[in-house]
């Protein structure tokens, strides 16, 4: 019957994803556990992974600062050009990753529109700020959209009720609207962080060094092949997935 055929297809899809990941992970754990231990003990591996997590964290903080107010304005107000603004904010999701890298390098490179004037004070290319900007660019839409949906889900009458009880707008926002959309914003932040640390193409163009996890995996793969890069890949995904599980 149709249900049976559809269930089989679901099983194929499930196995495609599950086998691909578990084959790599269990292949490493069971077939070459010592390689994994060596990777943990290697300071450049742990350094690259820590840098991924740290840069992703900074990008998420920036995304919160920019995305929460943006989401609020988009959820509560109508203004001319609103649809254009929403579309532009969504564009990074569909930009090919190396294209995003080229665009960021164009603007934040030492001769760029922003990177140029800032050159004496802050270095983007091959430096942490460049990594964070690249991560922010590709992951920003997740936070802005989540925050907007969160604020939309809060009945504006609750804000009105708070105001008629004597709360100015900012108090109504911080005591009523923000707590009630906290769940949406938190989920958005986790997705933003995950998207940030998964990025490779945009980051590798503005900053091959200092190496983040995905870059180190690529670098080792090019230099020493699959068996040298796989332990790092397994380590990175295990750490990422466990942070996820903890947050959820």
């Amino acid at each position, binding site marked *: 019957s149709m249900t049976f055929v559809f269930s089989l297809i679901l099983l194929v899809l499930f196995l495609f994803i599950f086998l691909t990941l578990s084959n790599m992970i269990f292949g490493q754990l069971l077939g070459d556990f010592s390689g994994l231990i060596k990777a943990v003990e290697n300071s450049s591996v742990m350094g690259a992974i820590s840098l991924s997590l740290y840069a992703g964290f900074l990008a998420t903080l920036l995304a919160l600062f920019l995305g929460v107010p943006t989401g609020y304005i988009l959820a509560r107000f109508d203004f001319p050009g609103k649809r254009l603004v929403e579309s532009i904010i969504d564009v990074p999701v569909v930009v090919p990753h190396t294209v995003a890298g080229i665009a960021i390098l164009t603007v934040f490179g030492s001769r760029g529109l922003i990177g140029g004037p800032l050159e004496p004070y802050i270095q983007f290319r091959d430096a942490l700020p460049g990594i964070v900007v690249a991560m922010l660019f590709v992951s920003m839409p997740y936070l802005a959209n989540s925050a907007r949906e969160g604020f939309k889900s809060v009945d504006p009458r609750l804000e009105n009720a708070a*105001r*008629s009880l004597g709360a100015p707008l900012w108090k109504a926002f911080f005591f009523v609207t923000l707590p009630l959309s906290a769940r949406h914003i938190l989920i958005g932040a986790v997705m933003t962080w995950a998207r940030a640390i998964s990025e490779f193409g945009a980051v590798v163009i503005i900053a091959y060094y200092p190496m983040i996890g995905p870059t180190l995996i690529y670098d080792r793969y090019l230099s020493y092949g699959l068996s040298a890069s796989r332990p790092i890949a397994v380590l990175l995904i295990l750490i990422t997935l466990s942070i996820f599980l903890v947050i959820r």
Partner: protein
Amino acid sequence: MIEIESLSRKWKNFSLDKLSLQIKAGEYFVILGPTGSGKTLLLELIAGFHIPDSGRVLVDGKEVTHLPPEKHNLAFVYQNYSLFPHMSVKKNIEFGMRMKKIKDPKRVLDLARDLKITHLLDRNPLTLSGGEQQRVALARALVTDPKILLLDEPLSALDPRTQENARELLLDLHKKTNLTVLHITHDQTEARIMADRIAVVMDGKLVQVGTPEDIFENPVDSQVASFVGFENVLKGRVLSADRGLLRIETGEAVIDASGDMEAGDQVYAFLRPENIALSKTSTQSSIRNSLQGRVTEVWILGALVRVKVDCGVPLNALITRQSAEEMKISPGVPVYAQFKASSVHVLR
């Protein structure tokens, strides 16, 4: 006291058109109008949630039109009560005091006792019944002792039994605290029971202001008349007029009514179904109409029965099931439709 001067505002599908209204201090004032007539918009304008396109709002003589809502100093209770779902009932009630930096824990407890919600103080508002939520919303709105209470369809989210208690509660509160209450509703019965005065708003325009008697006995036009329950609308011509007593020809019937029309006037006569009694025998008199007719349709509505009678004009009557059974009312049965001349409302 609330003064509304020539207020206009367009918003989404709603609009208000140069609406003026004065609500006296201590009054229980009901704004009655069909869904979509702009009633809630009016209330939100008074509370400062919208800025009008033109016109002014004055509260106790002070203009508040352009002040932010937190400076309007009035209590507002939405139809859905809008309790903060992330705070306990107690925190909800204290919210206004926190915002206005008033410290008086006794006031919360007193109000909770008066509104019989003391046992609910630690609960989450989402776990309360509609009636309980409403009492909490009232406590929250009244805790900072405002002089004016705005109520947006306060009864329409409640089931019929709870509605009875809620009406009593609101009237009690109004009596005890000398609050000015502005209550909006689409329910004519609710307006009739509760109001000191009623304003009828239709399509964003003020149509009639007056006591419940004014509105329900003397609607100013046919729109108001049919909205307040005069379901029978008879088009006719005045045959004779003698010191306020009119004889009106309508369809193939002639009815007596009262009004200050003149012979020859084209008029509409309005009549409520519940004011028409049915009888097997005629009991003619000068002030009581008794039209001979024949039942055409019968619909049982629980304890009531709606009967359509053809008396030369079609009339809808509403009678009890008991009397319908006693008279064996069914299609084809001959009956007399009887109604007082004074219950016919005549408009030009």
